[in-house]
C-alpha cells in the first residue's frame, strides 16, 4: 500500500480496457486496479490487455509496477560500498544471523568461516552479502515476510532492498 501515494489510482484505471468483462475473476476493472495496487494481481492477469491494441498500456503498467515484488522479479539487497564503514549493525540485527550465530546476541560478530545460514559478514572493513537463501523475505510467513531491518537500521543508509531482474 505504500505505493498509493506515488501511483495515481485513476491513472491506473484509465490504462485498463474498462469493459468489466470479468475474465480476471474480479467483478469490475476498478476492482482489478485496486488488486494491482495491493500486489494481488499482475498486469498480465488481464487477458484483454495482452491484445496488440493495448500494447502501449500494458508496457506502461509493467513499468509502473516494476518494483512492487510481484511479476517474477528477483529480490536483491544492494550494499553501497562507498557509504559502508563496516560497523556491523546489519550482521547483529538480522534475525537469521541472531538465530543461528549465538555470538551475535551479545554484540560480537560471528566467526569465520561463516555459518551456512548467515546472510551478512564484514570482510576487509566493508559489509558483504553472502547468500539470500534464508532471508526472511523469502522464507517466512505473514508479517515476518515484510522484514526490512537491515535497510532501516543501517546508520549510513547504505543498504537498499530492490526487486529487479539482473541481466
Amino acid at each position, binding site marked *: 500500500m505504500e505505493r498509493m501515494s506515488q501511483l495515481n489510482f485513476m491513472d491506473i484505471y484509465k490504462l485498463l480496457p474498462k469493459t468489466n468483462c470479468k475474465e480476471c475473476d474480479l467483478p469490475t476493472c476498478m476492482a482489478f486496479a485496486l488488486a494491482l495496487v495491493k500486489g494481488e494481481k499482475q498486469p498480465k492477469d488481464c487477458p484483454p490487455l495482452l491484445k496488440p491494441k493495448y500494447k502501449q498500456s500494458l508496457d506502461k503498467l509493467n513499468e509502473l509496477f516494476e518494483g512492487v515484488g510481484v511479476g517474477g522479479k528477483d529480490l536483491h539487497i544492494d550494499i553501497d560500498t562507498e557509504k559502508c564503514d563496516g*560497523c556491523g549493525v546489519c550482521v547483529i540485527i538480522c534475525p537469521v544471523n*541472531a538465530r543461528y550465530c549465538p555470538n551475535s546476541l*551479545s*554484540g560480537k560478530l560471528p566467526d569465520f568461516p561463516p555459518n551456512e545460514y548467515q546472510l551478512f559478514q564484514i570482510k576487509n572493513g566493508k559489509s558483504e552479502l553472502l547468500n539470500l537463501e534464508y532471508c526472511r523475505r523469502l522464507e517466512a510467513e505473514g508479517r515476518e515476510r515484510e522484514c526490512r531491518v537491515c535497510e532501516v537500521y543501517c546508520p549510513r*543508509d547504505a543498504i537498499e532492498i530492490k526487486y529487479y531482474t539482473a541481466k
Partner: protein
Amino acid sequence: MTQRTNNQERIQRFVCPGCSLYCDDNQIVFSKNNEILDTYGLCLKGYKKINEINSKNRIKNPLIRKNGVLKEVSLDEALNKVKELINSSQKPLLYGFINTTCEAQINGIHLAKKINGFIESNASICHGQTYLNVIESGFNSTTLNECINKADVFIFWGSNAEESHPKFLTKTIFSRGKFRITGREIKTLILVDPRKTATYGVAGVRDLYIPLKPGKDLELIQFLKDMILKEKSEVPADGFVGVDKQDLNRFILNLKGSENGVILFGQGVINSNPNENVIKALIELVDLINETSKRSRFSIIPMTGHNMNGFIQVSLSLLGKMGQIEFSDNQLIESNKDLISKIKDDEFDMSIIVASDPISNLPITLSSKLTRKPIIAIDCFITPTTKLADVILPVAITGIETDGLVYRMDNIPMNLQKIIDPPANLPSDEQILLKIIQKMEE
C-alpha cells in the same frame, strides 16, 4: 559455506588496536607464506590500521639531523646523540605515551625519573580533566558488558560515537543482551549535541534529540537536577535554553523512570566550556539520580582514546599521581604547572615525544616553542613532528608487530598480540626506552 582457497594456511583471532574499544571478535586469514590475506570483523578504522604495515611513510632506520639535513645512522650513534642531548639539558619534557602499551608507559616513567624530567600524556589535553574530578569525588562507572546486558537508556552528551568508535553502537544498542533480549526496540537513545552528527542517523522515532546551544551545558544540568527533586514536572511552557517543553519532559521521565542508564561524554564537554566544570556537574547528576530514584540506576563512562586509561592506571599505581609528574634529584616533587603552561612559559629545554604528533595537534603558538629546542621523536611514520626533530628512533607498530597490555575505555585490561615481524628488526617502544635508560647509566 567455507571460503577455503589453496593459499589459505591458518585463521587467527585478533584484538584490534584501532580505537579504545579493543574489539576481540575479529579474525585474520594468513597465507602459507605468513602474509595477511583477508580480515573478517574489522570495521573500516581497524582495517586501515592493519594496512599501516604497507604504508609508504614508514621509517626504517634511525635518523640524526646534521647541518640541517636528516641522515641515516646506526642505532648506537643515534643513542649516543640522545645521551649527549640529555646530558646538556636540565629540564627535559616527555610527552605522548597514549598509543603505546602499558610496559612502554612504565619505562617512560622510569626514564623521566632517571633524567629528572617532566612527563605528561596526551590525557592532559583530553580526558585528563575527567580523572582529576574523579580523584576528588569518585564516579559511578560500569563496564561494556553491563551496558550490553542491562542498560536501556543511553545518553550521548557531546560525543559522536558512530565516528569515533564505529562498533560501539553495534555492541551496545543493537545487541540482544541477557536481560534486554528484545534488542533495539526497548532501548532509548538521547543525543545532546548542538549539531546533527552521524550518530543522529541511528536515532529513530522513539529516541530523543536535544539541540543544546554551545556554552549552556551547566544551565541545563542544573535545571535537570532541580526537576528531578520535584514530584510533578514544572517545566516552563516555552522551554529552557532553547529546548521545547515536550522534549524536556521526556528527558526527565527517562532520567527518573528507566531501569538502567548510561551517560557517555566526549570532547564536546571537555573543550567547549573552558571556565566551567561541566564534568563535575555530570558526575553529580548521576549521583543524585542514584540517591533519589527508587528504580533507576545510572552510570557514567568517558569516551577515551587508545590506551589513555593505561597511563592513568600505571601512573596512579606507581606514583599515586596521574598528571603533572615532575622529578628532581630522582624524587617526585610537587608541581603546580601543567603541560600547556610549561610550554607557554618556556620552562623546558628539550622534549622527547613518544608516539604522538604535537606539531600537528597543538596550536602554532605552542608548537613553535617546541621546535626551538631539541626534539627526540620515537615514532613509526613520517609526521610533521618527525620532520622537525633532531633525532628520530623508529619502532614497531603496537598491537600488530609487538605485544603488550592495554586498558579498554571501561578500564578492563586487554592483551594485544604480535601477528607479524617488524621490518628491519625494529624494537618496540618498550625496548627502545629501556635502551635509552641503559645508555644513560653507562
